[in-house]
């Protein structure tokens, strides 16, 4: 009998912040002995690209995101920059700047980078499945993605998800 626990994740988001939950949960589950699969669909495909530098974080329309500076004296770091949506949308490069600052904050806090977490998942034999339909829909080629990715559809997902102990949509 196969009594190994199973975790199935669907990853649908394509931003730097939303790349964390699937990779953190999958790598940790694998360390705990779970057999783990992530099904990447729609914008989640961004997380499988060879080049992950396109992953960005957008503070625009995200009132839950604290905007703080990752450098300078403590009083400066503690300031919460309340920048109106209208300004964020008008300033060119605002998203890229926010991403640079976020990456610095991640580094300062000893949090792993996305490429690092993805590699840890692969080392732990987490299976990555890309949704073939959305690969074509968005005009991607298999060569855009890292090695070791399998391609399938909804039925492929259910084959594993139906047997899973935990199933998450992220």
């Amino acid at each position, binding site marked *: 009998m196969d009594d190994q626990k199973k975790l199935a994740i669907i990853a649908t988001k394509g931003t730097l912040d939303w790349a964390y939950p699937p990779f*953190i949960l999958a*790598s*940790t589950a694998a*360390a*705990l*002995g779970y057999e783990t699969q992530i099904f990447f669909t729609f914008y989640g495909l961004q997380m499988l690209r060879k080049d992950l530098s396109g992953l960005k974080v957008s503070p625009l329309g995200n009132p839950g995101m604290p905007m703080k500076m990752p450098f300078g004296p403590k009083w400066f770091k503690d300031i919460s920059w309340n920048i109106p949506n209208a300004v964020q949308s008008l300033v060119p490069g605002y998203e890229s700047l926010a991403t640079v600052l976020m990456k610095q904050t991640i580094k300062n*806090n*000893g*949090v*792993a980078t996305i490429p690092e977490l993805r590699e*840890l998942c692969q080392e*732990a034999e987490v299976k990555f499945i890309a949704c073939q339909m959305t690969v074509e829909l968005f005009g991607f080629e298999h060569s855009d993605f890292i090695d070791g990715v399998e391609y399938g559809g909804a039925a492929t997902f259910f084959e594993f998800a139906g047997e899973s102990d935990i199933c998450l949509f992220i």
Partner: protein
Amino acid sequence: MNFDKELDARGLNCPLPILRCKKSLNEMTSGQTLKVTSTDPGSVKDFAAFAKQTGNELLSSSEAGSEYTFFIKKK
């Protein structure tokens, strides 16, 4: 306490201490003890949960200042 291997996970944040711990245990043999030092306050509950779920025994979990020390015996 005696140990066979040591892991310095200071400065690392979730889930890295657990992942590094698992990697270290993989390189050890059954019955050996791993000492882990971390600074992540979340690791106290995480190492207890890791031990419970993987069957590796958490021999001790202690705190001194802002550092946490764990001794884990490999299953």
